[in-house]
C-alpha cells in the first residue's frame, strides 16, 4: 500500500519526466507526453501519407503503463484506485495500439514508397520509421515481391519478367482533402498553385479556425504542429 503511494507520487503530473534526446533538455510531464501522443495519433489517422514516427512518445507511455501495472500488482486487493488506474491504462493502451496499427496499415499499403522515403529520413532527427517498423517494412516488401515473382513474374517472357517499382509503387494521395484546426496563426499559406486559368491562392490560417482543404499545402504545418488534423 505504501508502495503505491510512493510510486504514484513519482508519476504525478507535476513531476517532469526526463525525455531527453541527444543531450537537449526537454522536460515534459507524463500528461504532456500523453497529450502529444494523442495529437500524433489523430494526425496519423487523418494524414494520407505516413508521418515521421514518434517513438519517444510511445516508449515513454509504455514505460509509464508498465510502472503503473507493477504498482497495481503490489496494491491491496479492493483498493478503489486500482480500477481507476486500470481504466486509464486501457485508454492509453488503446491510443498506442491504434496509432501503431494505422502506421502498419500505411506501411503495408505504401511499402515501396515508404522505404524510399525512409532513405531520405534515416539519418535525420525525424526518422520516418522506428527500427522495428523498418524491419517489418523490409520483410513485408520482400515477402510480397517474392510471392509475385514465384507465382507469376518468373514464368513470364524474359523481357517483362521484372517489376519496375517506379511504375508500380502505390503512393499516398497527398492531394486528398482533410479537416484541420489551426494551433498557431500562420500567414501566407499557398493553398492553390497557379494554374493556366486561375491565379495562385494565398490565405492566412488564423489560430482556432477550422478548415477543410487539401493535405498537400498544409503537410509541413502538420509536422511542425502549427495545425492539427481533426
Amino acid at each position, binding site marked *: 500500500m505504501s508502495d503505491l503511494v510512493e510510486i504514484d507520487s513519482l508519476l504525478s503530473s507535476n513531476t517532469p519526466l526526463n525525455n531527453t534526446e541527444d543531450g537537449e533538455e526537454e522536460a515534459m510531464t507524463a500528461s504532456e507526453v500523453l497529450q502529444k501522443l494523442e495529437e500524433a495519433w489523430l494526425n496519423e489517422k487523418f494524414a494520407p501519407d505516413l508521418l515521421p514516427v514518434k517513438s519517444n512518445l510511445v516508449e515513454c507511455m509504455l514505460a509509464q503503463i508498465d510502472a503503473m501495472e507493477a504498482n497495481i500488482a503490489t496494491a491491496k486487493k479492493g483498493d478503489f484506485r486500482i480500477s481507476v488506474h486500470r481504466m486509464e491504462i486501457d485508454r492509453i493502451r488503446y491510443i498506442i495500439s491504434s496509432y501503431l496499427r494505422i502506421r502498419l*496499415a500505411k506501411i503495408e499499403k505504401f511499402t515501396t514508397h515508404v522505404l524510399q522515403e525512409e532513405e531520405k529520413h534515416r539519418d535525420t532527427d525525424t526518422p520516418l520509421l522506428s527500427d522495428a517498423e523498418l524491419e517489418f517494412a523490409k520483410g513485408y516488401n520482400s515477402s510480397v515481391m517474392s510471392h509475385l515473382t514465384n507465382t507469376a513474374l518468373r514464368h513470364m517472357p524474359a523481357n517483362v519478367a521484372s517489376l519496375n517499382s517506379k511504375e508500380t509503387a502505390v503512393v499516398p494521395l497527398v492531394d486528398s482533402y482533410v479537416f484541420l484546426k489551426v494551433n498557431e496563426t500562420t500567414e501566407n499559406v499557398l493553398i492553390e498553385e497557379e494554374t493556366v486559368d486561375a491565379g495562385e491562392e494565398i490565405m492566412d490560417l488564423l489560430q482556432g479556425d477550422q478548415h477543410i482543404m487539401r493535405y498537400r499545402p498544409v503537410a509541413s504545418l502538420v509536422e511542425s504542429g502549427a495545425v492539427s488534423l481533426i
Partner: protein
Amino acid sequence: MAALLVSSGMTNNYFSLDDILASQETIPCTFNVKVATMGYLDQSTSDVDINMGTKLDLPFWLAKYLHKGSRGIVSVDTPKTYKEGYRHIFTADPNVVDLYRLGPYFYLFGEKLLSLQLPDTDDIANVLLKTFQGRFRNIMDGSQNALHSDLASQMEKLDVQERQLFAAGQQGLHEFQKWESRESEKLSTSAMVSNHRKRKRIGYIANAT
C-alpha cells in the same frame, strides 16, 4: 476494422482493379497502317491482316498504346457518350442520365480519354466537372435519406465512383445511428468471420437439398 483501412478512394495505381476495368472501355479507332497477322482482333472479318483504313473499337489501353507517337498506328475518335450530342444532354439535365449504363466508369474513363488529345478535349473535361456538380445534390440527399426506400433504384443510375460516394454517405449516416442507439458500444464479431459463418450455413442448406 475501419481503422485499418487507409482512405483509399479510387487510386490510379498499377494494381487497382477499378483502374484496370475502366481502361477496358472502348474507343473508335481507325488503322493508319496495315497490321500483318492480327486480323483476328477484328471479329467482323476473316482476313488474316488488319488492313489500312479498318475501323475498330479498341479498349483504351490498346488504343492509347497504338495511338502514341507521331506515326500512330491508329487514329482515335471520341466515343459516342462523350460527343457533343450527349454533352448537351448532360449539361441540360444531368440528373436524368443513367451514367452507369453509359459508363460504368463515366468519370474515370473520361479522364483517361483526355490524354488522347482529341479535338474536343476541353469540352469533355468541362462536361465531366459540370455533370458531377449537377448531380451532386441528388447523390447527397439520396445517400442521407434512402434508409427506408429502395436503395437499389436510387443507386442504379450512378456511375461506379458516384456509387462509392453514395455508399460513403450511407455509411456515415449508419455509423452515426449505430452510435446514437448505443449499438457501437457492443464488441462484435469481425465482419469476415460472420460473413464466413453465414456462407457456411447457406452451403449446408445447399448441400442438403
